[in-house]
């Protein structure tokens, strides 16, 4: 079942990257394209294994960079760092709470572009930066935050529709069985 969930996450990442490159409605409306990989990473780091988190960062980052003018591999590390931090603290996070999902989505969507830009500047590239970048950053962060709970809902539906549900626990306990008669 775990590998099926990982597969869903990777397929979602693939479609997400394509959607970001093929459909530009959000950019026309808001002046910035929303990145859906950070919300996916939040979901993966709360519900999947560390291997899936690493795979999502690697595949998602490489797919994104292959359709972008970014140098190949620049988006991998920011995604993975965000995923790893959430993964390390996931026992302390109330992952079913919408507010927690929103907050994590906001933090991840804000951190990933910042770290990517920092990496780009560190590696000697000159991305298009200005005061407008702050607006784009705000749109990306808030958009990512708003989409994170949606991502949880969608994966919840997909999992309940396509995966086996957990078997309900029986109230019968052999250690509490009352044995009658002489033994």
């Amino acid at each position: 079942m775990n590998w099926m969930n990982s597969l869903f996450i990777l397929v979602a990442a693939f479609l997400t990257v394509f959607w970001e490159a093929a459909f530009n409605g959000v950019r026309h409306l808001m002046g910035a394209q929303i990145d859906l990989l950070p919300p996916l990473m939040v979901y993966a780091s709360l519900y999947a294994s560390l291997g899936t988190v690493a795979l999502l960062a690697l595949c998602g980052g490489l797919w994104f960079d292959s359709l972008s003018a970014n140098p190949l591999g620049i988006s991998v590390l920011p995604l993975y760092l965000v995923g790893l931090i959430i993964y390390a603290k996931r026992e302390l996070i109330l992952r079913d709470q919408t507010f927690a999902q929103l907050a994590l989505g906001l933090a991840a969507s804000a951190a990933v572009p910042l770290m990517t830009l920092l990496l780009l500047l560190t590696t000697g590239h000159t991305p298009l930066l200005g005061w407008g970048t702050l607006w784009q950053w705000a749109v990306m962060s808030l958009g990512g935050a708003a989409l994170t709970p949606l991502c949880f809902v969608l994966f919840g539906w997909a999992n309940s529709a396509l995966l086996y549900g957990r078997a309900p626990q029986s109230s019968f306990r052999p250690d509490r069985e009352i044995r009658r008669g002489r033994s």
Partner: protein
Amino acid sequence: MLKRFHYIALSLVVLLTLIILNLPNQTAARLKLGISSLFLPLFGWTATAHRLAGQAGDTLVPRRELLKQNETLRQENQLLRFQLSQDEEMRRENARLRQLFGWQQQTARKVKLGRVVLREPANWWRTVQIDLGQRDGVQVNLPVLTTDGSLAGRVGSVSLTRSQVVLLGDPSCKAAARVEDEGRSTGIIERASSLENGFVDMGYLSRNSNLKPGQNVVTSGLGGIFPKDLPIGKIVDFQATEYGLYTVARVKLAADLDALEEVWVLFP
């Protein structure tokens, strides 16, 4: 706190990222191409969906509207034919005069129409991808124009079936330009503002330039990439830079880069 296993996983991903980032340019470009080719089936499906949506839209247009459009296009066609015959005459006259003065003959450039298939997913670059590639003869640095003939950018990288076009305003697309004023002031079209996609800065203009808002800006032909006299846009405002060494003008692009659907690739 991170556990030991987490550190090992982090180190592995960092190592892998560093290896990919430090690949030779050619290898990285090939790898990028290979990875992006995974999206080819989706390109096909999107194109089919667009075509089907277009066909469905066509069937919904009323006959009266089609007849009206047909009549308008017929009139436009006649006008264009008339203009073409006049242009043909002028071209012959131009060629005769060039021959008389011993000037070098100008050769007509070939163009190829490409469809924009993808846009830049990252907000800090200005690029699009078109459906023309090496098999169509596209090479790096060929100029790219909008369908109405104004400059859109240049080809940044080419794969077999697709090319990445770096649009005007991207930090890696600079164009030598000229203002159509008395002094024919020259400058360089540089990066755009990160939000205003329709505007670019034209820097390195002489501080004595006689600039006015509304003046046309065209390519100067210097620099070796863009041919002369391709329209770029109009000056909106200008100001002297710090210490007044030169003037920077803000130019409103003639091309609507947000709405690019089809582009011309200009061949030499």
